[in-house]
């Protein structure tokens, strides 16, 4: 029997599952959400039905947390707990497959600034999810800050949910600058039209959109009452005297995205510059492990879906299905990556943010580690790696396991941050659940797994 496991049911994972299934391969599609779509196509969990349908030979395992991936002879064993994360009755299950497609996506990055730990400060993604999924605005007067085109739909969703967006502060050059430029690097980008509409929404609601600006401080005794927005120089250092105080009861910040790497690292995929390295067939350095979507680079839903289609076909071929190279999807991946590269080059994160922090600004919220404590640990103990940095500073050791602070802390400390994503237990599991024997379904056929099939396009 030919079977693959796809982890993540966003645009990349759904496309991978469909592509593999269309080649006659059985697919187990595992996702944390109650419904298909992932973050991008977030569906109302309570509404009836599902807006997506997948081929019949795709088994969608919803509300499932993959907590470990373990190497076994000839493939991989994926360990899940199924059921609400906080519920007492999660069911254990283990699935084996010779090929995996990882499509675990990314979460948005928040940079710390004084006051970022006040209630009322949200990530742009959280503000967007609340507005789109439940029609709830995070505040009445919201300042949106960060960098990249994603800030526009976030602001538009907040307006849609009834908030007044006080200002959008873009730390790099204006998104709107290149939207209308027919010869710019991003001309023809499929999202361009959408962004023009969002920009129109902001204009109609007279929302100031300021480039080279950032929220560098949030003020308030118990909750956010106001923020300081400053102009930034090219390295993101605040320009002296440009500070303005804006009244607001909420802030939504997003500085790009961080890929969800722990399962890729558990499957021993090579990671470079924070992303999983893949070949033209979306194959990683680990045999039989394919990656698609934001894991391989931040490029949006269309690129993710194209990568997913390629990865699903390649995984199907890896387990023995007759597969023609998916040349059209591969072409879409190539052009999508060009746009993504241009976009990422236009919206970098510059090091000036280090100086937005004061000595007592918290850099790791779970363990309440301040910038001063972090720098002291680095200076006095001269640590050179993530493992020892965590243990001497405490940063990244708390409940989020460095998901929020890891990149920022690594950047401040001057070490490679990939180590923060090394989480062999990929999501929390109760001791009693861990102690339980879980049935291994459909173990890999030893004889079948003896054959080594390469994937070459």
């Amino acid at each position: 029997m030919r079977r693959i496991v796809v982890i993540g049911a966003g645009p990349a994972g759904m496309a991978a599952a469909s592509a593999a299934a269309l080649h006659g391969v059985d697919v187990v599609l595992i996702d944390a959400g109650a419904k298909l779509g992932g973050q991008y196509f977030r569906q109302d969990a309570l509404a009836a039905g599902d807006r997506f349908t997948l081929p019949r030979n795709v088994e969608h395992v919803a509300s499932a947390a993959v907590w470990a991936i373990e190497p076994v002879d000839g493939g991989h064993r994926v360990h899940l707990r199924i059921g609400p994360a906080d519920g007492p009755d999660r069911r254990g299950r283990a699935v084996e497959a010779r090929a995996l497609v990882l499509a675990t996506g990314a979460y948005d990055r928040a940079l710390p600034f004084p006051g970022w730990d006040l209630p009322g400060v949200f990530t742009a993604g959280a503000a967007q999810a609340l507005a789109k999924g439940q029609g709830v605005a995070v505040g009445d007067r919201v300042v949106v800050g960060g960098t990249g085109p994603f800030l526009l739909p976030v602001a538009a969703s907040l307006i849609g949910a009834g908030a007044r967006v006080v200002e959008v502060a873009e730390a790099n050059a204006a998104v709107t600058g290149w939207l209308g430029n027919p010869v710019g690097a991003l001309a023809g980008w499929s999202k361009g039209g959408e962004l023009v509409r969002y920009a129109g929404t902001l204009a109609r609601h007279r929302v100031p959109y300021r480039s080279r600006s950032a929220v560098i401080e949030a003020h308030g005794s118990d909750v956010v009452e106001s923020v300081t927005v400053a102009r930034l120089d090219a390295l993101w250092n605040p320009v002296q005297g440009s500070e303005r105080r804006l009244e607001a009861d909420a802030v939504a910040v997003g500085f790009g995205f961080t890929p969800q790497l722990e399962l890729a690292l558990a499957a021993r995929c090579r990671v470079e510059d924070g992303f999983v390295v893949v070949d033209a067939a979306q194959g990683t350095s680990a045999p039989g492990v394919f990656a698609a979507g934001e894991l391989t680079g931040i490029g949006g839903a269309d690129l993710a879906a194209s990568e997913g289609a390629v990865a699903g076909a390649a995984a199907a071929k890896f387990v023995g299905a007759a597969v023609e190279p998916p040349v059209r999807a591969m072409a879409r991946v190539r052009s999508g990556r060009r746009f993504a590269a241009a976009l990422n080059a236009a919206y970098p994160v510059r090091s000036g943010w280090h100086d937005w922090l004061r000595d007592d600004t918290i850099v790791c919220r779970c363990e309440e580690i301040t910038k001063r404590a972090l720098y002291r640990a680095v200076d006095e103990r001269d640590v050179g790696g993530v493992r020892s940095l965590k243990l001497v500073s405490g940063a990244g050791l708390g409940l989020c396991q460095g998901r929020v602070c890891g990149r920022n802390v690594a950047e401040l400390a001057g070490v490679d941050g990939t180590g923060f994503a090394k989480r062999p237990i990929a999501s929390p599991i109760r001791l009693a659940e861990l102690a339980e024997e879980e049935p291994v379904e459909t173990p890999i056929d030893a004889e079948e797994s003896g054959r080594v099939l390469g994937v070459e396009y």
Partner: protein
Amino acid sequence: MSRIETADVVVIGAGIIGAASAEALSAAGMRVLVVDRGAPAGGTTAGGEGNVLLSDKAPGPELDLAVASRRLWPELIESLRAELGDEVARVEWEPKGGLVVATDEDAVGPLSILAEAQREVGVEAVDLSRDEARAMEPHLTDEVAGAVHYPGDAQLQPVLAATAMLTAVRARGGEVRGWTEAHGLVFDDAGKVAGVRLGDETIACGAVVNACGPWAGHFSVAAGAPIEVLPRRGMVLVTAPLPHVVGRKVYAADYVAAVASSDVDLQVSAVVESTATGTVLIGSSRQRVGFDEALQVEVLRRLARSAVKLFPVLAGVPVMRTYGGFRPYTPDHLPVIGADPRFAGLWHASGHEGAGIGLAPATGRLLADLMCGREPEVDPARFRVDRPAVIAEVRT
């Protein structure tokens, strides 16, 4: 910081043993360079729990070293505090004692015999009834057949301890160089160690200490003087922070047998303790799988089972992460501390298996005493390098 070009001693390996050796040598007035091919204190030292134990050792040379080391740890921390200040000397030292628990009747006899033998050599070990044990640790299983309390057991945070000692080495004019691999030794005409090759650079020195932990075997081969040190893998589970559940270091009586065994197969024995931040650490596993780092869920499963058996209250507690490492294992389970018989100027300090954190200060002191020609407090004979278990062929 300026890079030093010559040193009295180059210590290879910036884990707890290398750090303690370098600390003791620099305290004796030597200029020490410590190199590590990775981040300082980032290997085995970052992969353990910080055990400073007397309880798990039967009378013999290792217990002698452990007793000396247990006395030295608080003294050393105090002297680092005086020299470098409170912040650097903060190593989460907790002299909280250990509780060894037998959960079936068969284990009670051997546990009492061990405790009696330990008492005879001066280790404080108090036999407890089931009720006394549960009064001490209220969340302990009610299936206690017998227990022994060891007030002398302690715990510290090993990465803080190692980096504190390395900071002292720097403050005394030495240097710590991470991400620097030692490729081999340089000898003078008389065949004595004259330097060490680091990448394309050679550092002139009078002596080299191999403190590479589980990689000590690798370096010894590169140095041309092989010793037998092998990796023995271990894993630890870490729970989310909890209100106070476990007061001491609590472990199952079969731990002692697991520590002393030479089995290749997986051995799991519960060791449960809280840390300063409220997380609970759950060990211990032993496996001889080379340097294979692949996750084995079966190991985690058995750790979880053994912990819930000791503390049923932990069943609903979430495990946040797992980490692990490789213990430096010698075939006769004793550390290797002393001069290499083949090359004058080459010294070894390794093979402490899972006890390196506890044994570090006495190891550093013993090594410094031997190198400086001082009378050592602990008899070095059983740790010598030219014993059959460690060295196959001795050239003199």
